[in-house]
């Protein structure tokens, strides 16, 4: 996890003060840190921030239903597809408990709906 931190935001200061062990932090007012993160984001490994604070979390691959339509728009049924593992930016999490809750939720989703085996 990475906390995208902005010191001008009260909630961000509160999250930084209770940063969990192993969680990284990018201070958005540091040009160096901001550019390092921007390079990550450009390579697809870090979503751009929409607001501060945001917490970047890893989301494991899972299966998702997708509607299928015919040439005339008729509904044909649902297909099961894999959403690959990726990262998401949790916007303005109220607390680290909220982040933990999200992580538990996506882990449970993956357990219940594992990625579709290739082939």
């Amino acid at each position, binding site marked *: 996890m990475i906390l995208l931190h902005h010191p001008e935001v009260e909630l961000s200061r509160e999250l930084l003060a209770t940063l969990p062990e192993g969680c990284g932090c990018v201070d*958005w007012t540091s040009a160096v840190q901001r550019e390092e993160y921007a390079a990550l984001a450009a390579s697809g490994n870090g979503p751009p921030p929409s607001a501060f604070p945001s917490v970047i979390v890893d989301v494991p691959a899972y299966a998702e239903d997708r509607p299928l339509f015919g040439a005339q728009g008729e509904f044909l049924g649902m297909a099961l597809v894999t959403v690959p593992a990726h990262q998401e930016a949790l916007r303005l999490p109220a607390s680290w408990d909220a982040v933990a809750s999200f992580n538990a939720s996506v882990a449970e989703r993956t357990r219940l709906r594992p990625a579709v085996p290739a082939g």
Partner: protein
Amino acid sequence: MRLVSHGGGGAWPGGVRGLPPGPLGGSKSMFGDGSYSGNVMQGGSVLQPVAGVLTITAAATIAPDAVTGAAVLCCDTLVLDGASAALAPSTNSKGLVIYAQTRIQLLNGATCHINALGQAGNFGNLTALDLTPASIRRTLKKGLADVYAVQGEGAAGAAGAVTYADGNTGSAAAAMQTGGGGSGGVNSNGSSASGPGGKGGPCCGGAGSAACVSNFGAYSAPAAGDYGGPGQNAYADDNRIATGGGSGDPVGTGLYGGLSGGGAGGGLLMLIAPVIAIASGCVVSADGAPGVVGSNTYQTGAGGAGGGCVVLVASAGGYSNAGTVRASGGAASTGASHKNGGAGGAGSVNTFTI
């Protein structure tokens, strides 16, 4: 007859370097002369200062100037006090600029904002002076208001989404810049795509693009406008699916129960005072409007607008913030049964001391 010079100093009691004092007895400074511009509306009437202190305790607005297009306030001391105290432009504007000769103070949960009230346009780089009406400009000593320029081009908008995917988040702003717009979600049977979000302008975060629903072949939805707008109208060739319009200035319209865009990008907010004090729980913000979905069972969401640009200029040691100063991008649309739009990119917060 001997001519009296106003430039020599001391000719006007209360003045500085011989400049005439303002109506309240102040003198020209980089923060204005302390005279009240008389344009804050609260509870249907013009708010008046008491002993030089303009105290806002409820929702209050400033109308944009007819010439510069910005809502500009000049006063001696501005205090926003209480959770109901909220100062904002009365409508979309090129900026909210506040000069206070003594101090600006937010207390007890007060807010000062230009959320979703930016004005789209390619106005080039802009300083506070560019936005300040002549009547107030005359009270300013040169050397401050023309220094800090917001960039004419904001951050880039998000790429459009393809086939069946959530929209993407707009780019975050660099210093003195607004954020880019998010892109709409796409619900397609083929290779259709939502349009990209728009890049920000100097006075408005980038517009979000609309949601796109296309089950008949490949359709490329139009891009949201640059420099803050417009957000595009939703596209849907399936009338079962509520499809949201992009946020921007102006907003795009929704379809089949989808909502129109939630408003414009965050605007340009400048506070210029020797002392700026923001207490815990108080917020100074230039947030973009969120993405929207709709009321139907089947929904696809549009993109949010980018965050704006906040500029705070205070004397050395005069700035304190125990609360929040932010320029958040508009939140992604949430809860769509199909795909959501992306969020607007974060805008920038810029603090300077002189």
